[in-house]
């Protein structure tokens, strides 16, 4: 019997702001747990908001998402996107992380904002595109740090 791979992307809001130390602790904890449970993914934290991709065996991912949903460190958790995978998109990361800052500049005219599209809710095409844009951004930033 094969176990289907599932990827879930969710967003949530930190109950209290996370400074660098708290984020580091959270990542250490997540990476240890994910390694034990064959989970991979990435985490973004921007302006008090988490965006996380989790991928792995379906039942494990769903269990963890339920656990995260009950974690008092954040609120307003929303699953934005889920899909079954043929292969992992973040196979190299037990929990990849790259710092991302809130925009300070005006968006170029006629451009969309990836984070706005991510949570638009009623436009699946825009959400999917935003997920892929973030994945691309993450890969580019990660490779730059190597």
């Amino acid at each position, binding site marked *: 019997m094969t176990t289907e791979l599932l990827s879930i992307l969710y967003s949530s809001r930190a109950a209290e702001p996370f400074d660098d130390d708290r984020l580091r602790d959270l990542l250490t904890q997540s990476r240890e747990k994910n390694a034990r449970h064959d989970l991979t993914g990435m985490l973004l934290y921007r302006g008090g908001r988490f965006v996380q991709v989790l991928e792995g065996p379906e039942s494990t991912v769903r269990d963890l998402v339920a656990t995260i949903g009950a974690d008092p460190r954040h609120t307003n958790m929303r699953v934005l996107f889920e899909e079954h995978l043929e292969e992992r998109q973040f196979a190299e990361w037990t929990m990849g992380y790259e710092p*991302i*800052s809130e*925009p*300070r*500049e005006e*968006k*170029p005219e*006629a*451009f*969309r*904002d*990836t984070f706005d*599209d991510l949570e638009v809710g009623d436009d699946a*095409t825009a959400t*999917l*595109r*935003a997920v*892929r*844009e*973030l994945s*691309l*951004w993450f*890969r*580019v930033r990660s*490779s730059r740090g190597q």
Partner: protein
Amino acid sequence: MSTVEVDRPGAGVVWARVEDGFHVGSRGGEFLGYIDRQRDGRWLACDLYSREVGLFADLTAAMKALTLVEASERLRRR
């Protein structure tokens, strides 16, 4: 039609800002590539395989170059 695409290679392209200075272009669910502002202020355009298309003085020039590369690649594949 290909004539329209050659005349207007930017038609149907969606550009998005992921963060300040990092922009992704896509068309019909497929990436054209991305444009990443460098420390010296120039714009590095890369295709969807992260191959460098060029360094440009302004964002508009980088968008145009990436769009043309993708359009010509798409026509070549036909």
